[in-house]
């Protein structure tokens, strides 16, 4: 009864993309993430939900080692991308982040042209041999970001001159330009109006065909709309992880139910 005939909500694959085992994160003495075990599936949108300070963003940032830059932050446990430990000493975080792209809460285009915003990543990773190839990569990324038609005539205009929603889609285009395999999104729509939000959500649904997408959101309706899997975090614990339709209709844990129904958790 959970399989809606109106819209395909089930996952397309059960292949694991990222596997986290017994992950602990400490900020100094603070134990921010406790014993998290989760399999993030390929070609699936996974939503992380939970109250502020529950650790969902912290956990998201461990998936591409964004916490490396924080001195007091310590990560324990095993996080594997396609079976490879991403915290292995031999792993170059820059290469890792090319594979695991990220989009942030506020759109943050570089103060450069629209073209250069997207071309930057492919350039530093040496993905293009010549200008023609680079042009092609930029166009493809902007099309994937569902913004090509709006900017194709002004690729030299500054990225910062776009509207908020366009800037965010430009940032998504920038993130997909390096052909990542996983896309992490930390509240990608919180600074956008409802129309721009719908456009980004539609885009996320399209991106699912090629990527594993993980989205942190405070909007439970958004989590329900865009994801196939949902993970509920509370006080650093992963309380419940399951199909989005199950989490929102018949959650197992009373804490999940309290949170999604708007009761004090």
């Amino acid at each position: 009864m959970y399989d809606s005939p109106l819209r395909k909500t089930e996952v397309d694959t059960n292949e694991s993309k990222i596997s986290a085992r017994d992950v602990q994160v400490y900020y100094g003495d603070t134990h921010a993430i406790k014993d998290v075990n989760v399999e993030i599936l390929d070609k699936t949108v996974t939503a992380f939900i939970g109250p502020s300070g529950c650790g969902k963003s912290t956990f998201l940032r461990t998936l591409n080692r964004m916490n490396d830059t924080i001195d007091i932050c310590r990560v324990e446990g095993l996080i594997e991308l396609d079976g490879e430990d991403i915290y292995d000493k031999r792993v170059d975080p820059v290469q890792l982040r090319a594979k695991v792209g990220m989009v942030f809460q506020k759109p943050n285009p570089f103060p450069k042209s629209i073209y250069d915003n997207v071309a930057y990543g492919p350039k530093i990773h040496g993905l293009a041999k010549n200008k023609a190839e680079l042009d092609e990569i930029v166009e493809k990324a902007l099309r994937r970001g569902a913004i090509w038609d709006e900017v194709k005539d002004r690729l030299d205009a500054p990225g910062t001159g776009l509207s908020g929603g366009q800037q965010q889609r430009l940032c998504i285009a920038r993130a997909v330009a390096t052909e990542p395999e996983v896309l992490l999104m930390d509240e990608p729509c919180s600074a956008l109006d409802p129309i721009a939000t719908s456009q980004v959500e539609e885009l996320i649904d399209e991106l699912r065909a090629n990527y594993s997408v993980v989205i942190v959101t405070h909007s439970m309706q958004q989590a329900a709309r865009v994801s196939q899997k949902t993970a509920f975090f509370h006080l650093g614990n992963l309380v419940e992880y399951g199909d989005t339709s199950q989490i929102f209709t018949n959650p197992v844990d009373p804490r999940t139910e309290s949170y999604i129904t708007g009761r004090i958790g």
Partner: protein
Amino acid sequence: MTDELKKHIASAFDRDLEAIQAQILKMGGLVEVAIRDAALSLETRDEELAEKVVAGDKVIDEMEELLNDEAAKVIALRGPTARDLRVVLSVMRMAANLERIGDLSKNMAKRTSVMSQLAQIEGSATALRRMARDVEHMLKDALDAYIQRDEALAYDVIERDRDVDQMYNTLFREFLTFMLEDPRNITSCMHLHFMAKNVERMGDHVTAIAEQAIFLATGEMPKEDRVKEDRTSSDPALSSGADLG
């Protein structure tokens, strides 16, 4: 609800949910009275009471409409999920079932005035009233099970519908016997049979309400398929009357 889960942060949400549940109970109360009065009016040949049942059905219809409006408003404005969503969905479904029971009671009451012109069939009105009383008690228990999230009581109600189906089978056979004995009984027996069928259908709607109580309590509809005890439509031995002559 409030004893098992904490209150919403938005207290108006709690009030909305409590309001629609209070409405469904009120509607259920009116329907219980309709069932009782319809059967009683037949037994006592009380045409005035029968008219009251027919008139009262309008109120029941209006309550269904009101409940659907209120439930739609809660969905639109509050975006309920999980148990809250099940409260709203179950209220809408139960309102439809209650409205149908109201209609069936009305149909039954309408025949009272016809029946008072016709020959009495010994014991049939009393048997019908007993059957209706069982359905009325089942409805009361189904609504109690709903409000108290009592899964066991809801299953008990579903079980008891078998008895109602058995009573219908018995009445069906009795009416056949009367009709075979004397063709002058046919008109009365046809009317009485329609009434018995009305009450049997009410039992099915009460079963559906009990299923909503289970859905609300557990998040899932009861799984096992109920064995249908009304076999008059499929069993030739029951409907031919060959062994009754």
